[in-house]
C-alpha cells in the first residue's frame, strides 16, 4: 500500500477550490496553505500564447530529505507511504523547510510547529478520498494506491505518461502530474 496523488494539468483551471477546501478541512490560519495553486503563463506574444495552472503540495517523497534530516524524528513515513509530521515531536527548528526541494512546508505560528499536506490520511484511513479530490469541480485530481497495478491511479499514470514534478531531484515523489 502506497498512497499517491495524480493531478491532471490538462484539466486544472486554477480556481483554488482545493486550497480553500483544504484550509477549511484542516482549520488552518489564512496564511497557511497546504495546497497552493500557481498560474504558469501565459507565455508568448498575443495571440500566440500558452498557459496552464499547477497545484503544489507535499510530494510525499519516498527518499524524503525532510524525513532524513529531522533531528527529532517528527517527520516520518507512515507505512502507507505518507510523509507525516508528529506535532508532539516537532520543535519548530525549520530544518525541514530548508531541505524540502519543493518548498511546501510552512511554520504554523500559532502552534510553533511545521505543517504541510497530510494527504488527509485520517480520511483515507476511513475509506474516504482526500478533501482536495472531493472538492475539485474539474475532476483534475485522483488519489489511490500506487502499489496496486489495477488501481485507477496507476492505470492513468501509465496511460497519460504522468510524471512527478522535478523527478530528476531523485526524491521519488508520490504525486504525479499529467502535463498540459
Amino acid at each position, binding site marked *: 500500500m502506497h498512497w499517491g496523488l495524480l493531478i491532471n494539468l490538462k484539466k486544472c483551471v486554477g*480556481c*483554488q477550490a482545493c486550497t*480553500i477546501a483544504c484550509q477549511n478541512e484542516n482549520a488552518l490560519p*489564512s496564511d497557511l496553505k497546504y495546497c497552493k495553486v500557481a498560474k504558469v503563463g501565459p507565455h508568448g*506574444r*498575443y495571440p500566440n500564447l500558452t498557459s496552464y495552472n499547477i497545484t503544489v503540495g507535499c510530494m510525499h517523497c519516498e527518499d524524503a530529505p525532510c524525513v532524513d534530516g529531522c533531528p527529532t524524528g517528527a517527520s516520518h513515513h507512515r507505512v502507507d507511504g505518507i510523509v507525516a509530521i508528529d506535532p508532539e515531536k516537532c520543535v519548530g527548528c525549520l530544518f525541514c523547510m530548508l531541505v524540502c526541494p519543493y518548498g511546501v512546508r510552512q511554520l504554523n505560528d500559532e502552534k510553533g510547529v511545521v505543517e504541510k499536506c497530510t494527504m488527509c490520511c485520517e480520511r483515507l484511513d476511513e475509506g474516504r478520498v482526500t478533501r482536495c479530490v472531493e*472538492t475539485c469541480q*474539474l475532476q483534475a485530481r485522483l488519489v489511490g494506491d500506487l502499489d496496486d497495478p489495477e488501481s485507477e491511479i496507476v492505470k492513468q499514470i501509465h496511460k497519460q505518461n504522468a510524471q512527478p514534478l522535478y523527478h530528476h531531484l531523485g526524491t521519488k515523489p508520490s504525486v504525479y502530474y499529467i502535463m498540459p
Partner: protein
Amino acid sequence: MNCGMLATVEDGVVTKLVGDPEHPFNLGAQCPRGASALDHLNHPNRINYPLKQVGKRGAGQFKRVSWKEALDDIAARLAVLKEEYGAETIATTGGTNRTDDFARRRFFNLIGSPNVVHTAPVCWIPNFLTESASYGWAAFDPEIAGARCVVVWGHNPGSSYLPEMRGLLQAKANGTKIIVIDPIYSETASKAELWLPIKPGSDNALALAWLNVIINEGLFDYKFVAEWTVGFDELSDRVQEYTPEWAAEKTGISPELIAESARIYAMSKPACIQWGVATDQLGKGSTASAQARVALRIICGNLDVPGGDVMPGPHPTFVTDWEMELNEMLPEVQRNKQLGSEKFKLNSWPGYKLLTENMLRVWGKSIPAEWFCEANPSRVFRAMATGKPYPVKACIVLANNPLVSYANSKLVYKALKNLDLLVVMEYWMTPSAMLADYVLPVASWLERPVMTTTYGVSDWLIASERAIEPLYERKTDFDFWKELGYRMGQVEYWPWETDEDMFKYRLDPIDLGVDSYEEFVQYYRMHFADREYRKYQTRGGATLSGKIELKISLFEQLGYDPLPHYVERPFSPETKPEIAEQYPMTLVAGGGFMPFFHSEHKEITRIRLLRPYPRVTINPALAEKFKIEEGEWIWIETPTGKVKQTAFISPAVAPDVIQAERGWWFPEKEVTEPSLMGVFDSNINVCVDDDPDTCDELCGSFCSRGIMCRISKVEEDA
C-alpha cells in the same frame, strides 16, 4: 448557479458542508465559495436584525428595530407615495440566483408598478429573447457531451461556471472540437482547440461573416432550412456584404481564419453554440449580434437536435414562475408606464405581450415577466435622479448592490440619494445598503428551501430543503414580500404559510403523491419533464408564422430590423472620432472571475486573500510604455469616470486592450459617506456609460465590452 450540497446539522447547528455527489451539476465538488459556505452563514458581518437609519442617509446611524415596526412603516410610506405619485413611483432592483423572483413580481403586479429591474439587459436576456422571437423559446441546454464542436462565445466557464467547464473538458477528451471566441486569453481559451482572439465588441461582425461563408459555400442544412424555416433567401441576400475580408478589419482575425473556423462549425454536426453573457454587454448592437448567432444555429441544423442546442420549453405540470406572477393583475395603463418600454421594446411589455401570445399557442405557458419583461435600469435611475419622465420615489433592493452592479455608478448614487424611501434586504452591509432607510436581514441558502428552475424557463427543477431555520431574525425574501403584501391589501393573494407550503402547491400538479415539500426533496429531489427533440416538428414554432424564423416577424412587429445586420460599436474611433486621440485604448469592463460571485464575498477572509486587490490586466508592451510595474496602482479613465486598480501584466490581452475587474468595493474601508466602503475607488462601473443612445436598441443593454479609455500611473498617496 445552484450546486448541490449536503449539510450536517447537529443540535440545530450546521457543522459540516460537502458537495452532493448525486447532484447533476457539481457531482459532489465545490468551488472556493462553496468550500467557504460556513463562513458565509456565520460571518460576523452578516445582517441579523432589521435596522433603521436614524441619522442622515449614508451616515451609518442604524438602530435595531423589530420586523413589525420596519414593515409597518415601510408599508405606510409606500402607500402614501403611491397615493401621491401613482404606483409606478415604487421600483425594485434584484440580483441573481438567490431569490424567489416570482414573489417580487407578484407583489409589484398587485401594487400596480411595472418598474421592476435586474441587470437583465446585460445578462442573457437579449440572447434569450432573440431566440424566443425566432423559434419560440431559448435553446439554452447545449448537449455538449454529444456535440462534435462547441463554440464558447464570450464566455469563460473555466472561471465562472466550473461544472460546465468540466463538461467541456470531458467532451474535448472524447474528440469534441472546442472553439473559444474571446478578446482575452481566458482559462477556457487556454484549453480550447481553437481560440479566436477578436477585438472587443466585434462579435457581431464575426457572426455575420460566418453566415456569409456558410451560406456562400453551401455548408448549411438545405433540407432543414427548406422545410422548417422562413426568410432564408432574404438572409442570404443580406449577408452578402459581410465577407470575411470585411470582418477581418473589424475583428482583427484574418479572412482565412474566419472562413476556416466557420467551416469547422458548419461541418461538425451536431454542434452547439454555448450561451454566454459577454455578447449581451456590447451596448448598441447586442441583440443584432444575438440575431446573427441564432441564424447560424438554425441554418446549420443544430436547433433542438441531439448533440445540438436543445430547447427545453416550460415545465408542463409544475406551477412555473410565470403562473405565480399574476401578470394579469397589472392593468394596461400601468404596463404602458414601464420606464424605457417606449424605446427598448423587446424586453419590456410591448415585446413580452407578443412573445406571450406566441408561447401560449404552442406551449400553453409563457416565460416569466421577471427578467424577461422589465423596466430599463438606466431609465429608472434617471427617473429617480431627475424626476423625469415621472418621479420614482421609492425603491426596494433585494440581493443586489446597485452602486456596483449597474453602469454609471455616480448616477446610480445620485438616484438612490434622491429617493424618499430606500429599503435594502441584504446579507451584508454594502455601499448601497449604507444609503438605505431600512436594511433588512435576509436568509441565505442554508436557511431556506431553494428551488432551481433557471429563472423559471427550464423543463426541470431541482429542490433542496433548508438545513436550519433562519438564524437571528433573518427572513426569506418570500416571507418579506408576503408580509409586506399583507400590509398593502394583498392578504388573499398570499395564502401560503411558509416557503415550503408555497413550493408544495407548485409541485402538486406533477402528482408524485408526496405529502410535503420535504418529502419531495427526500424521495425525488428533482424532476425532469419528458423531453423530445425537434419540437418544431411536433408543436410548430412559437412564432407568428409557426416556423423557425430567420427573418424575425416579431422584430418587424416592434419596428426593428428583422434580419441579422451590422451595428457599429457604440464606442470606437469611428463612432466617436472626437475623443479617439484622448482615449486610445479599449476597455473590457467585466468578466466573472474566481473567487467572487458578482460583487459578493469580499468579506470572507480566505476568499478575499486569494484576490485582495482589484486587478486590471495590461499587456507587457503597454506596461513598458507607461513604465508600470506589476502590482502598481494605475488609473483607468473614460469620459464617464476614473478609478484605480492594480496592474496585472500579462500577454493575455492585446497591447491596446485592458481588462478591468468588476464588482469591487472594500468592506474594510471607511463605511460612511463619502467613502461608502471605497465604492467609487476601484468599481469599474464608474467608468461605464449608460447613455441610452449607446445602449442596445431592442433591450437597452449598456456597453461594458469595448469602451474607449486611457490609463496613467497613480502618483503616491493618490
